[in-house]
């Protein structure tokens, strides 16, 4: 099935005695917005880091963009974009320089980079800020820029780890518009969030509790299944049973 972009079976990560991610299995389809929910410490970031080739799985198997998670981490990296929970662009470089740096790293030529950077800046309404040092931008702008740079090489999948944490509602809205635009071009989005309104925007949602995936379906089906009014209620119902605290 070429339609499946991420496929995970029994993926596990242990740190000593602690099982951070416990035999999770799921598939993500092309062009989907896959919401990856869970309380703090549920294992979301660890799972995501395994999929991005930043962390070795202890056991289990999986493919991302057709490459093996265990053995082909570096090949996966060519086909994905990643936005970390922590802002990780270079604060002492300008918007334009950060774009050129990462475009160059992903092998875009100079001309391709110019075209792509102008396109992204225009879409972000950022053209006048191209020579601003990234460190002096407000948080919401930084997050939008991070997303733009994560997609600069038109990856098949973009992983977003709590991209809208601490961002104001207006910017959050704009951020999700950017996500939708990206999926229209066929990009798959894998996103973690703590905002339940955002969960409603996802094509499908999985909820992790104590390292395991406890629920996985479209937001509408999940609400039906748990007899809940909103995703917020679904989440509370599941997270209440969590053993691991914050």
């Amino acid at each position, binding site marked *: 099935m070429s339609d499946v972009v991420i496929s995970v079976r029994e993926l596990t990560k242990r740190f000593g005695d602690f099982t951070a991610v416990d035999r999770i299995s799921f598939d993500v389809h092309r062009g989907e917005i896959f919401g990856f929910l869970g309380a703090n410490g549920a294992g979301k970031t660890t799972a995501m880091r395994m999929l991005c*080739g*930043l*962390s070795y799985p202890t056991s289990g198997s999986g493919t991302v963009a057709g490459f093996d998670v265990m053995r082909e981490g570096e090949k996966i*990296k060519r086909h994905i974009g990643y936005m*970390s929970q922590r802002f990780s*662009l*270079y604060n*002492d470089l300008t918007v334009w*320089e950060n774009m050129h740096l990462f475009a160059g790293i992903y092998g875009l030529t100079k001309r391709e980079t110019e075209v792509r950077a102008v396109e992204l800046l225009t879409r972000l309404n950022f053209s006048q800020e191209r020579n601003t040092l990234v460190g002096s931008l407000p948080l919401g702008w930084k997050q939008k820029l991070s997303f733009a740079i994560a997609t600069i090489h038109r990856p098949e999948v973009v992983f977003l780890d709590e991209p809208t944490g601490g961002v104001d509602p207006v910017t959050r809205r704009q951020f999700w518009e950017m996500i939708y635009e990206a999926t229209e071009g066929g990009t798959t989005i894998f996103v973690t969030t703590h905002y339940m309104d955002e969960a409603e925007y996802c094509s499908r949602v999985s909820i992790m509790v104590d390292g395991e995936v406890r629920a996985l379906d479209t937001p509408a089906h999940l609400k039906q299944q748990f007899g809940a009014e909103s995703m917020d209620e679904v989440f509370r119902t599941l997270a209440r049973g969590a053993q691991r605290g914050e």
Partner: protein
Amino acid sequence: MRGFKMLLQKEFLQIRRNSFLPKLIIAFPILVMLLMPLIMTMDVRNVNVAVVDLDHSTASRRIASHIEASEYLTLSLATDEYAEALEALEQGDVDVIVQIPDDYERDMVVATPERISITANAVNATKGGIGMQYVVHSIAHTLKELRGEKSPATLSEMVTVENRYNPTLNYRHYMIPALMIILFILICGFLPALSIVGEKESGTIEQINVSPVSRLTFTLAKLVPYWIIGLFVVTIAMLVAYLVYGLAPTGSVWTIYLGALLFILTISGFSLTIANFSETMQQTMFVMFFFIMIFMLMSGLLTPIDSMPLWAQRFTMILPPRYYIEILRSVYLKGTTLTELWVNFAALGGFAILFNTLAALTYKKRS
């Protein structure tokens, strides 16, 4: 390839935009080369000598006046009471006592005079020891003159002393190459490590780790700027040494540059390896300091390797600065050529490959 170019450009931009680094890179070598040679000297000057003259002859007066004339010695007490001189020594007014026995001049003709006795205060071992040698040197010189006048035939028995390559035994000429190495260690050894750990602390390394950049590309992009900075530092250092202290290499400048290329690569690779094992600045600094102490004190920068215990002499074989200090000193003072120093160059090349391979291998993009 374009990735490498962009990463390199990024490193230079970051160094340039840093409010502190560019100033440090220029000011540090100039200040160190200007000030430290004046301070780091083991030349002993102003040795206070007391002459206890029991002979009161031309010979004894000649000895005393030669001591007084010496650039390094000061005749601070002339007496005929040994006790008085000893008291001055105890009080610290005098460093060396020379006692010329009674009838010394007369016995010299008879051939076996009573010996001149020299007493030195060795509390400050360097001053006592070297001061005494100066006195011996001065007296030997006087005696040589006296004998030459009396019986030219015995001249050949006299020992002649000549310091080849550093004729005036100028400590600065010995210390300037060591200072250059210290500069390399501080600038090209610390900065790359801090740059990597800085990326770990700020989280930017995560964005690199999730990209397809190879470990070698990233490591090289961290190295090359310090390579260039290092060459700049050695140029400044050589210029200051020449303009201020008049010390120019007797041998080829290119031999020094070639050695610098290899040595910087070695020390930067070493520092990157340390950084790969460290999570915080504190940890990096502490570990680097530990190794830098060993490098500075055991590589023969400040003290001769030949006077170390045998086990320590063997240990210096694995210290890269040892090989470069030999290159620097022999090129500067003796004019030794590249081919004569091939062992040192081969050793440095080996270290450069070893540490940079280690740096690339220990850099983990995945945990």
